C-alpha cells in the first residue's frame, strides 16, 4: 500500500463515480449527433440520477432482501474495482486485490447480484432477463480468462500493476499480434458484459429483446439510480481496464500532483475516446439475435486462443 496507490485510488473512485454518467451522456450525445439529432447534452445522465435520488422508493410485494440489496452490492463491487485497478497511477491502493482475475470475477459478481434481483421479482421479464444475462456471462468467461492468460503469459503475472508496469517499460509489445488479438477479444468480452450493441441494446423499449433492462424493470427511485450508476460505472471501469492494459501511457509512476493530474487527464481522455469509438460503432450495428450471440462469443474465444498462440509463437 503506497502513497501513490492510496491517493490514486481515491482519485479514481471520484473520477469513476463522477465521470461514469458523463461517459454515458457523451456516448448518447455522439450517437444523437450521428443520427442527426441535437441530443440532451452530456450532463443528462447526471440530471436523471439527481432526480431519481429524490424520488420515492417502491418495494414490490413479494420481493425479498435480495431485491433491495442487489443495487447496493453491484455499485459496491464496481467501486472496489474502480479503487484498486491502476487507472491513474501504476500503484494500486490494494495491490493484493488488484489481480486481473479477481477484478473480472468481481465485475461478474455484480451482474449476478442484479440477475438474482431480477429472479426475485418473480415476473416473467425478470426471469427472462436473468436467464439471458447469466447465459451470456457463462459464455463470456472462457474468452475473458484465455485473453487474460495471453496477456499474463508474457509478464508472468496476473497482477494488474505488474502488467501495466511491464507494458509501460516495453511499449513496443503493444503492436505485437498477441497483444492486438487479446485486445480485440477483450473488447468483445466488454461489449457482451456491459450489454452494448450488438449483444444487447441499451436503449430498447421492447421487453422481448431486452437482456439487462428486463432484470431491472421493477426498480424505481434511488434504487434505480444505483442500478443506472452501477451500469455506467461498469462500462467506465471496463473501458479503463482495456485502455490501461494496452495503452497505459500517461499513467503516473510516482506520487506528486502534476503526475497524478496527468494520469487523471490521460485516463479521462482514453476512456472518453474508447467510449466515443464504441458509440460510433454502435450506430452501424444492429442487435444480434440472442442465439447468434454464442457465435460472436465463439469467435472472440477463437481470437483469445489465437492471442495465446501468438504469444507462444511470436513472443
Amino acid at each position: 500500500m503506497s502513497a501513490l496507490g492510496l491517493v490514486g485510488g481515491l482519485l479514481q473512485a471520484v473520477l469513476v463515480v463522477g465521470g461514469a454518467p458523463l461517459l454515458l451522456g457523451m456516448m448518447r450525445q455522439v450517437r444523437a449527433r450521428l443520427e442527426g439529432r441535437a441530443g440532451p447534452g452530456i450532463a443528462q445522465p447526471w440530471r436523471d440520477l439527481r432526480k431519481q435520488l429524490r424520488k420515492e422508493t417502491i418495494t414490490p410485494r413479494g420481493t425479498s432482501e435480495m431485491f433491495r440489496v442487489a443495487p447496493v452490492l453491484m455499485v459496491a463491487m464496481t467501486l472496489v474495482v474502480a479503487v484498486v485497478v491502476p487507472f491513474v497511477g501504476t500503484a494500486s491502493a490494494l495491490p493484493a486485490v488488484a489481480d486481473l482475475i479477481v477484478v473480472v470475477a468481481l465485475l461478474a459478481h455484480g451482474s449476478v447480484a442484479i440477475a438474482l434481483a431480477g429472479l426475485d421479482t418473480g415476473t416473467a421479464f425478470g426471469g427472462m432477463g436473468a436467464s439471458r444475462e447469466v447465459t451470456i456471462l457463462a459464455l463470456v468467461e472462457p474468452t475473458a480468462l484465455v485473453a487474460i492468460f495471453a496477456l499474463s503469459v508474457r509478464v508472468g503475472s496476473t497482477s494488474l500493476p505488474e502488467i501495466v508496469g511491464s507494458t509501460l517499460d516495453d511499449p513496443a509489445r503493444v503492436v505485437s499480434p498477441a497483444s492486438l488479438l487479446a485486445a480485440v477479444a477483450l473488447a468483445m468480452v466488454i461489449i457482451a458484459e456491459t450489454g452494448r450493441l450488438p449483444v444487447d441494446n441499451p436503449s430498447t423499449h421492447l421487453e422481448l429483446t431486452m437482456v439487462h433492462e428486463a432484470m431491472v424493470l421493477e426498480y424505481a427511485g434511488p434504487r434505480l439510480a444505483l442500478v443506472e450508476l452501477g451500469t455506467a460505472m461498469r462500462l467506465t471501469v471496463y473501458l479503463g481496464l482495456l485502455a490501461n492494459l494496452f495503452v497505459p501511457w500517461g499513467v503516473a509512476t510516482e506520487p506528486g500532483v502534476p503526475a497524478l493530474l496527468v494520469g487523471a487527464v490521460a485516463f479521462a481522455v482514453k476512456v472518453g475516446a474508447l467510449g466515443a469509438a464504441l458509440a460510433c460503432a454502435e450506430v452501424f450495428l444492429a442487435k444480434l439475435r440472442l442465439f447468434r450471440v454464442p457465435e460472436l462469443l465463439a469467435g472472440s474465444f477463437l481470437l483469445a486462443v489465437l492471442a495465446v498462440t501468438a504469444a507462444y509463437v511470436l513472443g
Partner: protein
Amino acid sequence: MNVTGVALVAALVAGFGGGVAGLVVPRTVRPVVVGACVAAAGALATLAGVAAMAGVAWSAALPWLLPLTGVELAVDPLGGVFLAVTGAVAVAAGVYGIGYARGGLDGRAVQAALPVFVASLLLVPAAGSIGTLLVCWELMALASLLLVLAEHGKRAEVASAGRWYAVMTHLGFVAILVGLLVLAGATGDGSFAAVREQARAPETAGLVFVCCLVGFGSKAGVLPLHAWLPRAHPEAPSHVSALMSAAMVNLGVYGILRVGFDLLGGGAPWWWLAVLVLGAASAVYGILQAAVGSDLKRLLGYSTTENMGLVLVGVGAGGMFAASGDAVLAALALTAALLHVVAHAAFKTLLFLAAGSVLHGTGLRDLDAMGGLRPVMPFTTVAFGLGALTASALPPGAAFVSEWVLLQALVHGAGSGTVVASSIVLPVAVGAVALTAGLAVATFVKAFGVGFLARPRSAAAAEAHESPPTMLAGMALAGLACVGLAVLPTVVLPAVAGVAGGVTGSGPAVTGAVTIQLTGVSGTMSPLLLVAALAVATALVAAVVSRRSARRARLWDCGGGPMSARMEYTATSFAEPLQRVFDNVLAPDQDVDVTHYEESRYLVRAVAYRRTLRDRVEHRLYEPVLAAVRGWGRAGRRLADGSVHRYLTYGFATLCGLLVLMVVTR
C-alpha cells in the same frame, strides 16, 4: 501413541461404537445417540487430521486383526488432509442427522450403517498397507450402499440407483484390486513403506496407474465413469448425500494422489496429461448437465462431478509439472487441488444439507415446483445462498480462492515443460476451467434464484416450514466453514500447502497470513482485504442512498394480472438458452404438441411441451454395453435351459476337450 493416534483410535471407537449403538438402543433415542457418535467421531478425526498435517505422523500394525494381510494404519500429512476434511463433514452431517432421521430414517439398519460408513471413510486415508486399503474401501462401499438404499420403500428410483451404484462401485473396486495387487505382488507384506522402496518397470507402473485411475476415478465421479454419481447421491438421505458428495468422492482423489505421487513416485507426463484431460472434461460436462437440470439434488450431484474434475485438473497439472522437474509449480497446482477439496467439502455439505432441509420442509426436489421459500424457510434460504455463492466460485468465496490458485498454477506453468504441454494443454485447461466457472454461476443463480427467491410455484412450496434446530445447527456448522474459508483461507492454506509441498518434495508454494503470497512465482491475493474492501464499499453506498421508507406496491404486471405462478420463469425455462447453445452436446429430446379447436386450426386449444435430457455419455456408452450384456445373458439362458442331461453333456464335453488338448500339447 501420540495425539494423532489417540484421536484417530478414539474416532474409530466412536464410529464403530455408534454402529453398535444404532443396533441396540431404543428407537426414541437412537438418532440422538447415533448423531452424537458420528459428530464425535468426526470431531476427533478432524483433530487427528490436523495433527497429522502438522507433522505428527502415526502408524500401527495389527497383524492379528484380519486374516491374510492384517491391518496396518499409517497417518501421514497427505492422509491427514483427507481425515480432517472427512471428519469435519461428519460433524455437520451427524448433528444434522439427529433431526433429519425423525422422518422415517430411524430404522436399525440405517442408523447402524451411518457411523460405520463414517468410520470406514476415516479408515481409508489412514490405511497403511494395500490390503488394509482394499478392505476399508470395500467396507466403505458396502456401508454407503446400505445407506443409499435407505429409502427404497418410498421411491422406486432408489432401487435402480442402488443397482447402478453397486455394479459400478464394484467394477471400480476390481480395477483398483488389479492395479494394487500388481503393485503389491513384488513386495512381501504390501505395506506402503515396502511398496515405495520397490523398483519397477515403467510399463508395470503405467498399468498400475491406469487401473487405479479407472477405479479411483470412478469413485470420484470422473467422466465417463460418473453415471452412478448423479443417481446414487440424490437418492440417499440428504446427510448421507453430503457425506458421499463432500467426503467419499474425495477419497478417489486421495487414491490417485497416493498411488501416483507416493507409491509410484511420480511417473510419465502422459499419466498426468490423462488425469488433466479427464478432469477438464468431467468439469465441463458435469456442470453443463447441472446447468440444464432441474432436480435440485441431482444438480448437486453433477456439480460434484464438476468439482472433482477441477480438483483433477489441479492434480494433473501438478503431475505434469513434477514430471518436467518443476517442483515449485507442481506444489502450487497440488495446493490448489487440495484447497479445492477442502472448499468443495464445505460448500457441498452445506448445499446438500440445505437441499435436505427443503426436502424435509416441502417434500420437493424439483426446482420447477419450488420458489418463494425465502419467507417460509429463511434460515435454509440463507444457508443455500451462502453455499451457492461459494459454489459459483465468485469472490468472496472459498472456491474462488482455490480456483484462483489453480489458475495461477496454469498461467505460471506456461513457461515449463514441453511446448505441446505448455502451449496447448494449459490454454485449453484455462478455457475449460473458465467455462466451468461461468456455467457454475448460471447453475447456482438458477438453483438459488428460481428455487428460493421469487414466488412459490406449487402448494407444497407455499406451505413449507422451517426445519428443526438440529438440522439448522448442522447447516450452521457447514456455513461457518464456508465463511471461514472465504474470509480466512490463509488459516488452512499454509497447512495444505505444506502437505502439497511434501508430496512434490519442495517447500510450501503458498505463504502469507493476510495476503496469499505465491512462492517462486509472482502472485498475491488477499481474500480478507477483499472482503474488508467490499464491506466498506457496501456500507458507504448504503449510507449514501437515503433511508426513506419505501412504498409497497403490486408487482408491475403490465397493468393486466394478477400474475400467476405459471407466468414465472422456471428452472427449465431459465436454462433453455444454455440448452440451445449446447444443443449439439446435450442432444435433448423435445416434443411440442399443439392441439387445435375443431372449428379452426388457427385456434389453439392447448400446447404441450415435453423435454427429456438424457445423460448423453450414459446413453451412448453405457446403453450399448448394457445391451451387449443382456445379449450374452440371453445366449446364456439358451445354453442353460434347466435340463440336467444338458449340463452333464457340457461337463463331459469339456472333459474330453481337455484330454484332447493335453494329448495334442504334450
